[in-house]
């Protein structure tokens, strides 16, 4: 106990110094701390050296004047427009944003109440398409396979692709070549599936160059895209011009898978 009955303060002189330097003590407290430290040489030395170190920090280094550079940078960002112009820009931005929000809202409401206004076509039921075409596809594949076999025999040059002109009958009776165009799609599990549809081209007579010329049929097929989304078509034309016949065949083997096993493209120039 001290003389006045209080507990003695056992803080170290470092703590007293920190209290002074931390600006925690008010004036009377500071005076009391100074009185306490005055008798302690180490404490005085500690306080003096720390004060000297921290006072050095108060000497601020000379700063370059960056005002012009800063104002120039702000000017480039068009900050200092007249207030009226800035208000107009703000109003314009708000109007555009409100317009966009309004358009989105109207569209959402319209689609909700009248679903037929949908902007994207509804996807077809893949299972329906596949089911309806399977039987037809099998029959077609057999016909086309026969035609390809016939025409392969007729070729003299080696071919890298199967060349098909038409079914060679030689008996002059009307024939129908069935072919199928394809387009890529995805099933519900995102497996690639080829959806197909059928078309037919009537051919009268045989399929050799002379026969075709006599029959007057010309087959147009876009070699790069036909068969993938666009049905190949055929038309009649006269004259000794180059006749290009091109068909795109696709074979489905039994049992018919949901995807084609093979895709054979065929074309041939005929004179």
């Amino acid at each position: 106990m001290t003389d006045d009955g209080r507990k003695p303060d056992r803080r170290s002189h470092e703590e007293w110094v920190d209290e002074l330097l931390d600006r925690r003590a008010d004036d009377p407290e500071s005076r009391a701390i100074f009185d306490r430290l005055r008798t302690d040489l180490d404490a005085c030395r500690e306080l003096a050296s720390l004060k000297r170190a921290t006072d050095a920090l108060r000497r601020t280094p000379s700063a370059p004047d960056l005002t012009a550079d800063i104002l120039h940078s702000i000017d480039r960002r068009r900050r200092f427009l007249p207030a009226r112009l800035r208000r107009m820009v703000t109003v314009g931005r708000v109007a555009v944003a409100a317009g966009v929000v309004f358009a989105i809202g109207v569209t959402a409401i319209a689609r909700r109440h009248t679903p037929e206004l949908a902007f994207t076509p509804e996807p077809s039921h893949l299972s329906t398409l596949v089911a309806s075409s399977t039987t037809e596809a099998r029959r077609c594949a057999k016909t086309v396979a026969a035609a390809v076999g016939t025409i392969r025999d007729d070729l003299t040059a080696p071919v890298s692709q199967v060349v098909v002109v038409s079914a060679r009958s030689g008996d002059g009776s009307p024939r129908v070549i069935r072919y199928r165009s394809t387009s890529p799609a995805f099933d519900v599990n995102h497996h690639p599936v080829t959806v197909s549809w059928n078309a037919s081209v009537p051919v009268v007579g045989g399929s050799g160059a002379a026969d075709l010329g006599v029959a007057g049929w010309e087959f147009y097929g876009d070699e790069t895209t036909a068969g993938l989304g666009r049905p190949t078509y055929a038309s009649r034309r006269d004259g000794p011009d180059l006749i290009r016949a091109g068909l795109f065949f696709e074979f489905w083997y039994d049992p018919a898978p949901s995807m084609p096993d093979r895709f054979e493209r065929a074309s041939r120039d005929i004179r």
Partner: protein
Amino acid sequence: MDRAEERRLIRRAAAGDKQAAEACIRAHQPSLYAYMLRLSGRPDVAEDIVQEAFVRVLTSLDRFDDRYRFSTWLFTIARRLYVNACQKHKPVYESDVVGGWHSSADGPESPVIDAEVHENTRDALQAALLRLPEEQREVVILFHQQDWPIALIAQHMGMPEGTVKSHLHRGRRRLRAFLEASERDTARVEEAWR
């Protein structure tokens, strides 16, 4: 500049008054530059950050909450820019990067940094500051150079007041030790030249 005058200036600057913006810059530029220079140890970095901080602050004055001091906001933006710059440059350990980019002075590159600091800056105080860990350095600068109270420093640095005090006490003593060591070195060099 008192609080009311500062608010008036900021309102005018926010309304597009170039002169008010200029007054704001002139009022706060020296202290912000001193803070950044002492923190980074590099005048070029300090200049870049001061410029960018003012541009950011003055172009978004409409978001300024005038319950707070403008200087606090400005220093917060500047500090964020400095931290980003440090992170961007962290993998670089080239000789032209003086220790300001490193938080520790105990690594193998310390002698190189020390030598460069002494040779290039010729500023014992700056050299001593750069040898402090980053957090201690910032607390010491904000408290003793900028006269910020401990509570504000705690808020600015996102740490409890007790941690700030602890950084302050340790940082102050280490700064003193480095300065005294530097003075002894200088005295020895002077002695050798005589």
